[in-house]
């Protein structure tokens, strides 16, 4: 059964995959977002994620519904972790099963793009020389360069 969760615990990829296994699925595409150390040559020490949990889970579920309305036979689960995450820790796991492979890739890609648009989760980067909420236009922290640079783009 599909799940759409925000969790403070480590995410087990296998457990998420299992929820979308189905006799009529021939393909399961999984997207795993991990904490990257270097972004534009700037070294991340660790991340912190905050979320508006009930709304975030509702929006993850909405993305699942958008997918099953576009790809009728798809099954989707999405789990996003919050709290402190170290380099290479898993922040998000998306699993989509479909009968045929092309749809599994497309629906999985759709899910991650939508997460970055509508799910109220926020990432704070901690670098050696500062910290900032990404997507934050408020400049509540000092940016080394004086203002947000390219590292604040979501990708």
């Amino acid at each position, binding site marked *: 059964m599909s799940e759409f969760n925000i969790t403070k615990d480590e995410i087990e990829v296998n457990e998420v995959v299992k929820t979308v296994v189905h006799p009529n699925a021939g393909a399961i595409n999984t997207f795993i977002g991990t904490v990257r150390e270097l972004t534009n040559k700037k070294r991340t020490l660790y991340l912190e994620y*905050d979320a508006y949990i009930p709304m975030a889970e509702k929006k993850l579920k909405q993305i699942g519904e958008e997918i099953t309305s576009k790809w009728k036979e798809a099954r989707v689960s999405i789990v996003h972790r919050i709290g402190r995450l170290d380099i290479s820790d898993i922040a998000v796991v998306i699993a989509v099963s479909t009968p045929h492979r092309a749809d599994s890739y497309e629906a999985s890609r759709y899910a991650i793009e939508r997460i970055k648009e509508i799910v109220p989760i926020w990432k704070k980067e901690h670098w050696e020389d500062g910290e900032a909420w990404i997507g934050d236009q408020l400049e509540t922290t000092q940016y080394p360069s004086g203002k947000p640079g390219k590292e604040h783009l979501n990708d």
Partner: protein
Amino acid sequence: MISIMLFAGLQEKAGTEELKIDKDEMTVNELVESIRESDVNLDLTNVMVAVNEEFVSNPDQVIKSGDTVALLPPVSGG
């Protein structure tokens, strides 16, 4: 009384998880103006308002005491 949840950078800047406005009813636009004029000094550029866990795009939408209200900075999950 209308309570407004804060997250991420807004929460840090305001130093609190929740703002309270002593009204029973106001529009989204009035809410935003009320926060702008208050002494919490939050920059609300690009901040979205969520009412009862849905983004609100209509500034005239009415918020009532008891509604769940949140200010959402641009998201950066994934």
